[in-house]
């Protein structure tokens, strides 16, 4: 696994720098043939997927050693990684579909790996399987429609034939593909599988799915929309942008109020993919408007964000896995106080959380900054649509950024700091070296991307520029310098400045403070006796203000039961408070759908009543009908 990941990463890096290679295997996959074609865009996804696989693979070694993985998982994991890496390398529609479904199959096996432990796993697996299947069919239809005028299914032919595609067919192809790929990227409203499947899978699988697999949804949108169909009208991309913005806000809102650590991370994936889709949408919009330089910038931002998201999501999911392994719980309300018991995991999660909350000098800050730059400079573009869409896009990103901060302060502060809120958390021990090595590797990547994004940015800008036929939008080694528009940012200098600032503050305090010694003391307990974990804020209470603010969107269900003492109804014996936060999109969209399916099934059973007369009657009536038709049409 690690080797495969490493191979993929290396191949990806090589391809990113422009060394394309392709291979055709007509003998494989009967009737269609396989064809692989790695170009720089594939390279990005190969490299990211490979890197995630390396970290997750190392972690998996540790997890296996702890007996966490069953043989089925151990067999399916390499296959999953393999197919994951083959998808971006596919050079024809048939190949892409084949690898895509192979990935779906292997990941499904992995998602349901822990089905014996929790009943939710089976349900999550079903949601995942069905949504993936639907998404696959959408992709298949969309891509095959796109390939209509092409002589065969290879990307080269499709690209060449796209010009002959009627606008209606191209739009149909794009929208259907968007639905299919978007569902894989967790795009609202096609997301419900994601917050189910990602938490229920073993954590290294979650990391692979959340950090590597979802990227392929974006890959598909970029590949089909920008590469194969060559851009298309502006409204396609406005759709992408709006859906991305909705996903981002909705995802992070659910994450902000949730208290299941892994589910929270899953929703955060929806958010981040939403941001990437905003960037991709902006790119397409700019390209359609003729501003290719900005399009390149937006796409660069998208690619960088994909990369940073992959890095920090790997860290976060793997650390969550380490916590889960140590405490047996994903519920933030039962965690806490892990800093002293699991120092490495805590530190890694801290790095990941910092990156995820898009605060400087975190990794995601750079990519979001790039995205914002693209949006800001795009406003002078002509037309009313950008004037409406871009500010709303910025607003959505802004809201997302704020809520992301709240989310990850909660996840880190409640989950790892403070006092343990349960016996399991109090008895937690640090995970083994292999697991920590996997986490540490990903955390290193986070730090590297945060401090030195300029290492990869010019390459990414090259790739993005190549796709939209523009010069690279970003250059610079120490600082990120935008080309064509004013804008400069140096994460390296920012870190240096912060370090200098910190050093001077520490020095200043040492200079000024009279007493250097520190004393350990009791926390202030209002004089009411020792503080206990029950007095601590929990994740639920932490998020309560936000939940109240957004109650109009979230539509939470709350229930307070007060039971009184028998002696007097003025004495309260117990108060129980329950809060449920149903996914509202799901309730509005999927519940009626499921209901309709159930009704269909119930009514449909009436077709098989057991009556042989009725069965024969079907044929008899059809025969008479057909014969009558023959008479009429003669």
């Amino acid at each position, binding site marked *: 696994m690690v080797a495969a990941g490493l191979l993929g990463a290396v191949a990806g890096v090589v391809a990113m720098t422009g060394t394309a290679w392709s291979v055709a295997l007509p003998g494989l996959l009967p009737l269609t043939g396989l064809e692989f074609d790695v170009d720089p865009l594939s390279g990005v996804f190969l490299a990211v997927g490979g890197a995630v696989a390396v970290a997750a693979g190392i972690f998996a070694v540790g997890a296996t050693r702890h007996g966490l993985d069953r043989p089925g998982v151990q067999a399916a994991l390499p296959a999953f990684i393999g197919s994951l890496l083959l998808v971006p390398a596919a050079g024809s529609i048939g190949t892409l579909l084949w690898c895509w479904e192979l990935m779906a199959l292997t990941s499904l096996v992995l998602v349901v790996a822990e089905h014996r432990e929790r009943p939710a796993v089976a349900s999550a697996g079903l949601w995942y399987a069905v949504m993936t299947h639907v998404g696959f069919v959408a992709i298949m239809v969309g891509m095959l429609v796109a390939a209509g005028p092409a002589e065969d299914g290879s990307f080269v032919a499709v690209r060449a034939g796209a010009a002959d595609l009627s606008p209606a067919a191209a739009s149909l192809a794009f929208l259907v593909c968007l639905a299919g790929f978007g569902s894989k990227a967790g795009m609202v409203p096609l997301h419900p599988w994601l917050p189910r499947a990602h938490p229920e899978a073993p954590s290294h699988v979650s990391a692979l799915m959340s950090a590597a697999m979802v990227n392929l949804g974006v890959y598909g949108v970029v590949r089909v929309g920008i590469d194969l169909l060559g851009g298309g009208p502006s409204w396609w991309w406005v759709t992408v942008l709006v859906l991305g913005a909705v996903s981002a806000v909705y995802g992070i809102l659910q994450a902000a109020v949730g208290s299941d650590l892994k589910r929270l991370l899953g929703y955060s994936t929806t958010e981040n993919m939403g941001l990437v889709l905003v960037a991709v949408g902006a790119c397409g919009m700019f390209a359609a408007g003729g501003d290719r330089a900005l399009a390149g910038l937006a796409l660069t931002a998208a690619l960088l964000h994909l990369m940073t998201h992959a890095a920090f999501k790997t860290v976060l999911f793997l650390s969550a896995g380490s916590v889960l392994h140590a405490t047996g719980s994903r519920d933030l309300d039962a965690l806490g106080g892990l800093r002293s018991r699991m120092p490495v995991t805590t530190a890694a999660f801290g790095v990941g959380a910092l990156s995820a909350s898009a605060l400087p000098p975190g990794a995601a800050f750079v990519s979001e900054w790039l995205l914002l730059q693209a949006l800001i400079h795009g406003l002078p573009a002509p037309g009313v649509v950008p004037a409406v869409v871009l500010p709303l896009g910025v607003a959505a990103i802004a809201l997302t950024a704020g809520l992301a901060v709240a989310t990850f302060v909660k996840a880190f502060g409640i989950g790892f700091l403070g006092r343990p809120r349960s016996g399991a958390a109090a008895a937690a021990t640090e995970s083994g070296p292999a697991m920590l090595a996997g986490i540490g590797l990903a955390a290193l990547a986070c730090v590297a991307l945060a401090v030195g994004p300029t290492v990869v940015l010019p390459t990414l800008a090259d790739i993005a520029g190549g796709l939209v036929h523009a010069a690279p939008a970003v250059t610079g080694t120490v600082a990120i310098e935008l080309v064509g528009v004013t804008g400069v940012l140096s994460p390296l200098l920012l870190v240096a400045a912060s370090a200098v600032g910190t050093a001077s503050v520490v020095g200043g305090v040492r200079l000024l403070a009279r007493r250097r010694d520190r004393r350990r003391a009791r926390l202030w307990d209002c004089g009411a006796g020792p503080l206990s974990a029950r007095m601590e804020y929990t994740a639920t209470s932490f998020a309560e203000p936000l939940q109240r603010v957004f109650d109009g969107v979230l539509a939470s269900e709350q229930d307070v039961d007060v039971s009184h003492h028998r002696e007097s109804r003025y004495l309260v014996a117990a108060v129980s408070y329950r809060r449920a936060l149903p996914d509202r999109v799901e309730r509005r969209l999927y519940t009626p759908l499921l209901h309709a399916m159930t009704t269909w099934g119930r009514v449909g*059973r*009436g*077709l*098989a*009543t*057991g*009556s*042989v*007369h009725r069965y*024969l*009657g079907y044929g*008899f009536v059809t*025969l*008479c009908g057909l*014969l*009558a038709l*023959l*008479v009429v049409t*003669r």
Partner: protein
Amino acid sequence: MDPAAMSPPAVALLDVAAGALLLTAVLVVWRRDLPTILRIFTAHGIALGALVGVLAWAQRSVELGLVAVGVLAVRGGLLPWLLRRALARVGPARREPRPVVGVAASLLAVAALVMLAFAVAVPVVELGGSAATRAVPVAVAVVLIGLLVLVTRRHTISQLVGFLLVDNGITAAGFLTTAGIGLVVEVGVALDVLLVVLVLQVLAGRIRDTFGEVDLGELRELRDR
């Protein structure tokens, strides 16, 4: 076969046989008393044999004559006998239980089916152009009537009769359109039909044994509703 060679009396006889074929089929739908139905069915088989016989006479074909004898023996003798034996085995119920569709409605349906058959068979008649092919619509009508019996009758034996009506109709169509469809096939078809009837007869007995009755409407063990 030369269509022009058929003499007027032969044509008349052919029409009579075909008419008898249709009439007996309609009568099967009309009646609900099983022994009567079986008698009508015997007449039906004989009419079929007669039809083939007339064709043989018209064509002066000894071969076809022998076939006619065979058809008469199987359709007018063996099969009705098998059915009678089966009826005796499955018990005392001698009347068709309440049919799925009432007799009056069935007869109206028969009228519609006959018209449909006549309309459908127009191209067949036009293609053949002989007196024999002019009777094909009757055969098609018999097939459709047989299907109607299959769809609406609840007694195991009635359904068997329906099946055999379909088969007789097809056989009639076969003889009326051309001289036949090859000896091997002909024999194979006859054997198959015979075997199907035997199988169904055995199964009817088993239904009687396991369900305790012969009403196919009660066969609702296997269903999804």
